[in-house]
């Protein structure tokens, strides 16, 4: 078997474009997922049973079904709901955000529950509402604690985003497939794709480590 190093060099720019798209979709999905997850995580701790139940159903459904199936569901269901063909980018981000939101919700719930009950009581005893106490007292403390699991979720999302290649969305994995279809260089291209994923996830995990350390030293604000 001969290893075509030149193929790697030639394909690299195209693969990097795909990697950029992967970063984009991951960043969008994690940001939206963070927002969804924060509200759903708080909702799971609500005293109102209906809010709690809806949040639980959402989390259980998402965590109990494969992302791939969720992507298909969204890609084929959304057009029916909005009445027109939809962009794979929108479908991909919608599916990934909804997916990420469920996992982030559990992270937030755990983080909030890890804060001493006395903090909520102190806030409430000062006349602050539940929401004010959550916002000023509980969430800032919880957020610091959940940086590591959020980082893991970020990395997991980046890898899982390769699944949106099935709806033809041209992120890194899909780019690889397309190049292979033209050049038949499976081994070289998959190796390159794996290498690029590795570089990206490694960078994120370093970044998370750095944030975590910074917050530890400066355990305030």
């Amino acid at each position, binding site marked *: 078997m001969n290893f075509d190093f030149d193929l790697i060099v030639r394909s690299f720019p195209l693969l990097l474009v795909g990697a950029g798209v992967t970063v984009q979709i991951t960043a969008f999905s994690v940001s939206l997922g963070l927002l969804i997850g924060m509200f759903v995580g708080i909702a799971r701790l609500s005293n109102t049973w209906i809010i709690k139940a809806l949040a639980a159903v959402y989390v259980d459904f998402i965590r109990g079904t494969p992302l791939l199936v969720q992507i298909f569901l969204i890609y084929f269901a959304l057009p029916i709901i909005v009445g027109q063909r939809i962009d794979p980018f929108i479908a991909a981000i919608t599916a990934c955000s909804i997916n990420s939101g469920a996992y982030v919700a559990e992270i937030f719930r755990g983080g909030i529950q890890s804060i*001493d009950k006395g903090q909520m009581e102190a806030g409430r005893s000062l*006349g*602050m509402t539940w929401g004010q106490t959550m916002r000023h007292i509980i969430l800032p403390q919880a957020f610091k604690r959940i940086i590591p699991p959020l980082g893991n979720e970020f990395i997991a999302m980046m890898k899982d985003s390769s699944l949106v290649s099935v709806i033809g969305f041209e992120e890194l994995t899909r780019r690889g497939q397309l190049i292979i279809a033209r050049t038949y260089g499976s081994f070289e291209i998959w190796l390159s794709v794996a290498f690029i994923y590795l570089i990206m996830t490694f960078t994120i995990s370093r970044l998370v480590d750095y944030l975590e350390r910074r917050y530890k030293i400066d355990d305030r604000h």
Partner: protein
Amino acid sequence: MIDIKNVHKHFGKLHVLKGINAHIAEKEVVVIIGPSGSGKSTLLRCINYLEEPTEGEIVVDGIPLTNQANINKVREEVGMVFQRFNLFPHKSVLENIILAPMTVRKTPKSEAIKIAQDLLVKVGLADKEHAYPEQLSGGQQQRVAIARALAMKPKIMLFDEPTSALDPEMVKEVLDVMKSLAHEGMTMVIVTHEMGFAREVGDRVLFMDEGRLVEEGSPEEIFTHAKEERTKSFLSKIL
């Protein structure tokens, strides 16, 4: 000022408060004593609704605790100091104190800071406004917690064993702050095991046992001429 009428509290099957009736007048300093598990903390926490009574009624400063709006109103008037301080660890001493006045009373920041600085002088911690809770001793933290509660300008202060978590040498500095509050005429309800303090500062002592108010009277009456057998046996164990 505080009217407690036939208050019961259940935690599941556990019947913790069994029909408490009490009235606390303005400027009165009431000390609650009793064995562990007798329901002292629960009663105190019912006054600002951190616990919801399962039966009965509590009226604070003319405000019945009936709905959420009233509950928040009462909490603005009632300060609480906890055994374990419960300062906000991610905020500086000053930020701990100004947060509630700013978010609840909408006090402008500069004014809130002024109030906070005055209170820090009062509790003897003027030089600590930029420190963080973890940098303070237990006694200092508890004094900040008192200042934090006072910043809301409450009419009533509740203390739940404020010195129990402190090293002995720090108890006095906290009790001194409480004493000066009492002398200024603050209405106070205090759960404590500091009998010397109760005697010196308390206007009235309530003795609780097994969820009931067994006996009440002036410190003199309770500590030297208790009528009830249970009161006597409790006091003989701790005095």
